[in-house]
């Protein structure tokens, strides 16, 4: 029943978004909303491995950029249609997650995190040295002149990213309420006990890493069309890695609502700061808020709300 109500909300949001594009308001709003939706996808994806399973990934930027470059190269080489870009970017991201998982998920705690950080650096180095992908000079992507139904391409991308965000949230919510989510929670709480209680820990961790990687990859797929010019330094930017980790932690990492809250709040704050003060302030905001939350509310906003409610009942 709750699931159906949420589905109705999701459909209503998409309809509303499409209706909003009819308004043809200032293009900036679509640009800004796109970035926030993109962070909903990234934060939700990070949370499947980081929040549900307890494996902190510092390499989100690598997954995101890999999805973006996959799309850019496919556009450059074959003029591949848009849905195929999504499929390809999520497949490549999923495979990267799977292979990273296979190589490193036997490592625990901080060692796994260091390996993910190294992965992002390796990927960036590869792209910088790959002439066809533009190397460090970057790569241009031409938007199609026309897009069906929508007035212009940014409005189309805005609706696409909203749908991707809703899809990511639905995936996370399904995992959370299924046998898979319960197994992942057992791994997060105590991996040795989980294995001894019949949970196939390695297999579940690989599933989590693959799903997480696929969602991060798909978040990058529309990026070449969004920016039209990509270069490695900004595509592999630390912003992505830090934000996709900070947003779930601020929102609350044990439920699908947490990354959504964190991404919307922090993403909006960053957009407002970019316009009103300066874009350099973004990471500073994240840093300060994250430190405050880690100290004052380690379970995020969701944890605060639960504590409030629990307090009232007691």
């Amino acid at each position, binding site marked *: 029943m709750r699931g159906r109500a949420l589905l109705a909300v999701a459909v209503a949001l998409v309809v509303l978004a499409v209706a909003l594009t009819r308004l043809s308001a200032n293009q900036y709003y679509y640009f800004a909303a796109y970035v926030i939706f993109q962070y909903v996808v990234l934060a939700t994806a990070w949370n499947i491995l980081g929040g549900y399973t307890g494996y902190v990934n510092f390499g989100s930027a690598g997954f995101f950029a890999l999805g973006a470059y996959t799309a850019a190269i496919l556009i450059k080489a074959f003029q591949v249609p848009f849905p195929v870009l999504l499929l390809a970017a999520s497949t490549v991201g999923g495979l990267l997650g799977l292979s990273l998982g296979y190589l490193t998920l036997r490592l625990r705690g901080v060692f796994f995190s260091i390996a993910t950080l190294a992965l992002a650096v390796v990927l960036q180095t590869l792209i910088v040295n790959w002439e066809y992908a533009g190397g460090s000079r970057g790569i241009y992507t031409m938007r199609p002149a026309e897009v069906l139904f929508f007035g212009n391409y940014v409005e189309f991308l805005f609706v696409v990213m909203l749908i991707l965000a809703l899809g990511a949230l639905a995936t996370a919510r399904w995992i959370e309420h299924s046998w898979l989510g*319960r197994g992942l*929670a057992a791994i997060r*709480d105590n991996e040795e*006990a989980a*294995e001894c*209680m*019949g*949970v*196939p820990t390695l297999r579940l961790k690989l599933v989590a890493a693959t799903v997480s990687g696929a969602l991060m990859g798909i978040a990058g797929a529309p990026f070449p069309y969004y920016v039209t010019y990509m270069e490695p330094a900004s595509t592999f930017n630390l912003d992505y890695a830090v934000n996709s980790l900070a947003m779930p932690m601020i929102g609350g990492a*044990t439920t699908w609502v947490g990354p959504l809250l964190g991404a919307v709040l922090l993403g909006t704050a960053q957009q407002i700061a970019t316009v009103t003060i300066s874009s350099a302030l973004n990471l500073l905001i994240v840093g300060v808020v994250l430190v405050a939350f880690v100290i004052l509310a380690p379970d995020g906003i969701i944890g605060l709300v639960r504590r409030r409610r629990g307090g009232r009942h007691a």
Partner: protein
Amino acid sequence: MTAGILLDVRGVSKRFGGFEALTRVSLQVREGERFGLIGPNGSGKTTLINCVSGALGSDEGEIRFAGHDITRLPAHQRTRLGIARSFQIPKPFVSMTVLENLCIPAEYAAHARFPGADVVAEAMEILRLIGLEAKAHAPAAGLTQIELRKLELARAMAARPRLLISDESMAGLSSAEVDEILAILLALNERGIAIIMIEHIMRAVMRFSQRIVVLDAGARIAEGGPDEILNNPAVEKAYLGE
């Protein structure tokens, strides 16, 4: 194969670097047996149990369970076949309630052999048997020491084991609490579950076990009934020195 042998450990060795923790240890546990495993600190009891449950791989030897060669199986598959253990230092799933803790093995281990069972009803029944029913919906993070020990046993039971390994479930408990855990283990055994008890509290092991194996410095030094073990000079030497 002898009929009635549930667990058959043959010549298992385990080395950690240059240290030989187990040297060709063999032992057999029968269906429904109450089995005691004792030995001084560092004698290899927990290492042996880790090799049997699959937390560690053994370097040498063979382990058979209910007719299957499980020597190379990962731990979760051994649990599905029917080996469950409790941990010496309780390892609860702290983000879950007591009931949810039991649902993990019920769903992941017992379900493989007993599909269609009502996971929650079964977990509640185990909690009733163990005496944790009142705490079913309490967070596992807030339990007392004895409740944590009971949760360890209850969670292992939820996997519907044929062999339950109780690794020092009584260490640090008061005398009355030891009796309580002992009564629980006896009740579980009455349901036909073989139990390996690892314990330093001699009073409990001697009362509980039908047969006892003694380890010292990674090797088996004695086997027999409680009385034989108490009167065995090699055991006395291992514990007290000469």
